């Protein structure tokens, strides 16, 4: 929760393009974002909004047909966007930025014991060998909440349950001693009870190892639990960014409203649940103005013509919508949401 910290990673005017069958798709459309040291940032958006692409670009893991077209990714006085060779990326990948992926079933090697898989990283990134590496591996296993570590060390991934495998994946990520940990939908494949455990584990580890974490998710419940700050993405752009409570209870962008309104928790039984009309835009075509405008009931004329700038709501809260322009007509968020906002304010008072 330390906002006073300096940015550990800065993304500036980033544009990422993919070439698919001779056509060019603009996956990230001019994004700027700061990641602060020690914070926990959640990137929220639908599938295809570019949240995974954005994070993959930080690790140099873009697919072959994708490239960074413009912009900078500044980390440790280096511009990662200029990296061309694998050798350059190896100094970042794992060592500085590590990743926990969605599906623990596919991210482990089924032919190696889990101990060996962790030790591999310990050896590579901490330059430990033999007994020292073994001890470090056991310590990591304990840290991610696995009991009976000597026995577990010798077991294969298929002998573990989904939640346990995700713990192993986290241990491998930690073995690299990263500064930044990216969690891409870390609990989507898991049951709710296991999900709660893994999220708690990630929170504890963040404290213990002094990590900066980035969560990529579409589950707003998960976000509420783990994030200090939220960036909402739509069609390759960040439309709103702010502290967690600011986005939840004082959101300004109509897309943020729509996203929260469509939660079943906000619906009342027997009535229609709010749903966003239409489909996300085709990123092969050039997007004019606010990408959300065609689905937005509050869209102004200018939304179809010019891309809105970031309007400042508070020191930490920015939203990209013309509704915040002083000249714009005053618009109230949907009714169901106003109740939700009021509830949030009540909680804010109490705490």
């Amino acid at each position: 929760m330390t906002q006073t910290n300096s940015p550990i990673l800065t993304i500036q005017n980033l544009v990422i393009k993919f070439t698919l069958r001779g056509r060019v798709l603009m996956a990230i459309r001019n994004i700027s974002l700061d990641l602060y040291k020690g914070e926990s940032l959640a990137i929220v958006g639908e599938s295809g909004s570019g949240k995974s692409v954005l994070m993959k670009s930080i690790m140099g893991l873009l697919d072959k047909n994708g490239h960074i077209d413009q912009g900078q990714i500044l980390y440790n006085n280096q511009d990662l966007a200029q990296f061309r060779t694998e050798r350059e990326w190896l100094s970042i990948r794992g060592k500085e930025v590590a990743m926990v992926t969605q599906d623990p079933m596919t991210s482990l090697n089924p032919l190696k014991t889990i101990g060996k898989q962790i030790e591999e990283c310990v050896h590579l990134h901490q330059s430990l060998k033999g007994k020292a590496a073994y001890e470090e591996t056991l310590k990591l296993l304990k840290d991610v909440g696995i009991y009976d570590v000597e026995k577990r060390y010798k077991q294969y991934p298929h002998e573990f349950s989904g939640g346990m495998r995700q713990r192993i994946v986290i241990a491998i990520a930690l073995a690299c001693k990263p500064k930044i940990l990216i969690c891409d939908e870390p609990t989507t494949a898991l049951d709710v009870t296991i999900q709660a455990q893994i999220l708690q584990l990630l929170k504890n580890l963040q404290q213990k190892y002094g990590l900066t974490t980035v969560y990529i998710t579409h589950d707003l419940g998960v976000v509420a639990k783990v994030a200090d700050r939220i960036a909402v993405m739509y069609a390759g752009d960040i439309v709103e960014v702010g502290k967690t409570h600011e986005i939840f209870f004082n959101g300004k962008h109509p897309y943020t409203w729509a996203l929260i309104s469509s939660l079943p928790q906000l619906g009342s039984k027997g009535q229609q649940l709010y749903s966003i009309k239409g489909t996300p835009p085709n990123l092969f075509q050039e997007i004019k103005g606010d990408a959300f405008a065609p689905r937005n009931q509050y869209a102004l004329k200018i939304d179809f013509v010019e891309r809105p700038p970031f309007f400042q709501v508070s020191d930490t809260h920015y939203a990209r919508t013309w509704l915040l322009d002083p000249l714009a007509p005053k618009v109230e968020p949907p009714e169901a949401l106003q109740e939700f906002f009021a509830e949030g304010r009540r909680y804010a008072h109490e705490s």
Partner: protein
Amino acid sequence: MSHKDVLVEVKNLKVVFGKGKNKFIAIDDVSFDIFKGETFGLVGESGSGKTTIGRAIMRINEVREGQILYHGKKLNGKISKEWDREITQKIQMIFQDPMASLNERAKVDYIISEGLINTKNIKNEADRQQKVRNALLNVGLLPEFSSRFPHEFSGGQRQRIGIARALVMEPEFIIADEPISALDVSIRAQVLNLLANLQQQNDLTYLFIAHDLSVVRFITDRTAVIYKGKIVELAETEKLFTNPIHPYTRALLSAVPEPNPYKERDKVVEIYDPSQHRYDIQPPSFFEIEEGHFVLANEEELERYRTSLKMEVSK
């Protein structure tokens, strides 16, 4: 609720996979009723057996013991040909993954009418086309889509095709197995609304199998919580969510993250420890603790649950 007609009765259902040493009891002595016109939710973790119950009603999984009655008539085991044909048409299923459940090589037109062709439920070609057309319109798709292949559609649209395929059979009862868990948040709301509308229009009864409890709370009338092949608690959905009794239900509900950062920050997740039950001394059975609210317990636990329930109510 209790005055309603019972549509499906599941009595002491037991489903077993494997034989001898490899025997695995997937469903153990499960009983519940589904009333006509309601949405009955079945929640539990993966491996708890919720899908197996759905599949047993669909007659995909063999029933080892107990029986399933539909309109009071037995559905499992040996049944007459006419009855078999009737329930094949009346009970339909919607699957979880719209990417995997549609035939990639068939056009939408064929996918939707396959059931009609198999049950010889069409008079002529014009009738078939009309039915496909109506089914597509009902789920909010354009009739022109019938000449396309599944890969040309988005996830939400595919799920609509899956729903249209079930609807075209004019079913009474639909088993929806995690119908929205593969979909995006905004699409999810659309499909939930669609299911609710269709229920009203066509007088449908749903068995809604899911692990997402917030969705279950929104859409179902009654909910059963299943743990390791046994139903541990069953009640009207609102009652279950506000007054959970069984420790497993409590743990499950406490683990659901809520979209409220203030609440989430202070929340303590309850952990369920199955060893707290002394079922070796006194085996449990399924008790009705208050009207329409059932819980799996033995005598001693029941006493405890009763007092805690009284305290809750008096609060």
